[in-house]
């Protein structure tokens, strides 16, 4: 590419005026900015002492949950879309023939390795029946690696624990019930 190529957009540095060349006004400007921040309100949340406030739990990407339908059954139809979409390969599903007449398959086992999960929310996006959702639970801890691999029962229990505080997003967005 030649220097006079029309595709090159040459940008000249803006010329400094007299005040700029005298430095001092600009320097003072910088100093006043930092001095103002010295006394401004701090944004740090001292986490273990102070719990952070979550603006909108529906947007927050925390621990997963597996939703239940009206009859209390797991909504998942074991289509593997979430496992396929997952960039961290942390979802492991074993499908089996559904015991219920309204669907063909259901997850015999559904495990999420919370240690591998990067909380990107792609599973939530991919799910065609809005079965998997991310809650606003952020303090996720465990004493062993095994404990951090959440199975179906645990994921359903997360739903039971959070369904009142965070109703299923699909309901408010007009998706599947």
């Amino acid at each position, binding site marked *: 590419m030649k220097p*006079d190529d029309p595709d090159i957009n040459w940008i000249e540095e803006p010329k400094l005026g007299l005040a700029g060349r005298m430095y001092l006004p600009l320097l003072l400007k910088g100093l006043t900015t930092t001095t103002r921040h010295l006394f*401004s309100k*701090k944004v740090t949340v001292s986490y273990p002492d102070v719990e952070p406030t979550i603006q909108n739990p529906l947007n927050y990407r925390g621990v997963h949950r597996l939703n239940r339908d009206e009859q209390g059954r797991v909504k998942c139809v074991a289509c593997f879309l979430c496992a396929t979409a997952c960039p961290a390969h942390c979802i492991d599903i074993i499908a089996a023939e559904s015991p219920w007449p309204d669907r063909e398959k259901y997850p015999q086992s559904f495990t999420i390795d919370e240690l591998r999960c990067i909380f990107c929310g792609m599973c939530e996006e991919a799910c065609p029946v809005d079965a998997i959702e991310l809650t606003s639970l952020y303090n996720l801890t465990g004493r062993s690696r095994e404990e951090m691999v959440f199975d179906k029962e645990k994921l359903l229990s997360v739903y039971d624990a959070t369904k009142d505080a965070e109703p299923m997003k699909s309901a408010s967005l007009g998706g599947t019930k």
Partner: protein
Amino acid sequence: MLLALIKIAVLVFVLMTATAYLVLLERWVAAWVQDRVGPNRVGIPLTKVRLWGLGQPLADGVKMLLKEQYVPSHVDKFLYTLAPISIMASALALFAVVPFGTIDLGGGYILDLVVAPGIDVGLIYIFALSSVGVYGVILGGWASNNKYSFLGALRSSAQLIAYEIPLGLGILGVILMSNSLRLEEVVNQQAELGVWFAFLQPIGFLVFLVAACAEAGRLPFDLPEAEQELVCGYHTEYSGMRLVMYASAEFIHMITAAVLIVLLFLGGWHFWGITGSEPVAGLGLGLVRLLILLGKIFLVIFLFMMVRWSWPRFRFDQLMSLAWKVMLPLGIVNLVVVAVAVEYFNDAIHERPWLASAVMWAIAIVVWVVTAIVNPRRDDTNLPRLNDELYRPDELGPPSGGYATADLTAAR
């Protein structure tokens, strides 16, 4: 002899403690400017008392002490070990002539708060030792056998040599006006006059302030260890206590710069209406003076820390052009103005110092505006411009005989 040893012990203890706490202060200021709270967890060890994080330096020190004294295999072992020692030693030895006041203890016993009182070449000593500090940087960069370290060391040597000239010119103005190389005398003269030299020679003050900032390697002049460009600069290969020595030497350099600014230009222990102007003070007044001196030093250091977050770092060519094209001429202008003032208007300065400083400030403002209009850095190019004669790589064509390329096959 014993007294000098006690003074040295006290001075080194105070300096090292001050350094440790300045690291904490630096982290606090950094945090506050960025709207964070900064280190606030570590307090008294083994208790839950937090004390706003005042235990942090202790924790840092223990951590660094317990680190492995790792020496990379590719370094020059002797110089690698010598470098931090030399930079630390020169930084500490410099304080031998820094006067913190003179106290009359009564009974005809006068205590000088200096390790080496009454040295007639105090300023030259300080200037010489601050130059020795460059050796630590260059040796460290060279011994590390690492290109980033070496680049940092090279930059540092160029920068320190360039800024030593305006620094010296700034000091020259003070020497001319005070007629002495003794730091005690410089401070006493300012106290007697009642007008600090910062008021009497503003250009010199400004030049010295900038040059001292550059000598201490503080932002916006921290080119030797620009993290984004050079990993860590000259101490990239250092860890553990050796790194601590480098880091604390850097902070001591900053304290030195602040101390020099305060002693030479901001009146040392003098403050109007509080300290009086006698060279020797009683015990109470002496302590007040000491507090005022330390307060001033602290304020200057705080200014350095605020400056760090206020202004972006210079590019290396900007740094050099600022030193040679702006600071050096301004320093000479200051020297000439002060020389004329001292030669022809010395009595007037001593009779009406405030009027004299007003005149000096007027001259300074004129010089400043003229500098801005003339713009000594007008020829600095920042970008390769389209119409620039220098930047036409395609029109030049290959040089006769072709491009010089390394013939690797022949070497085999």
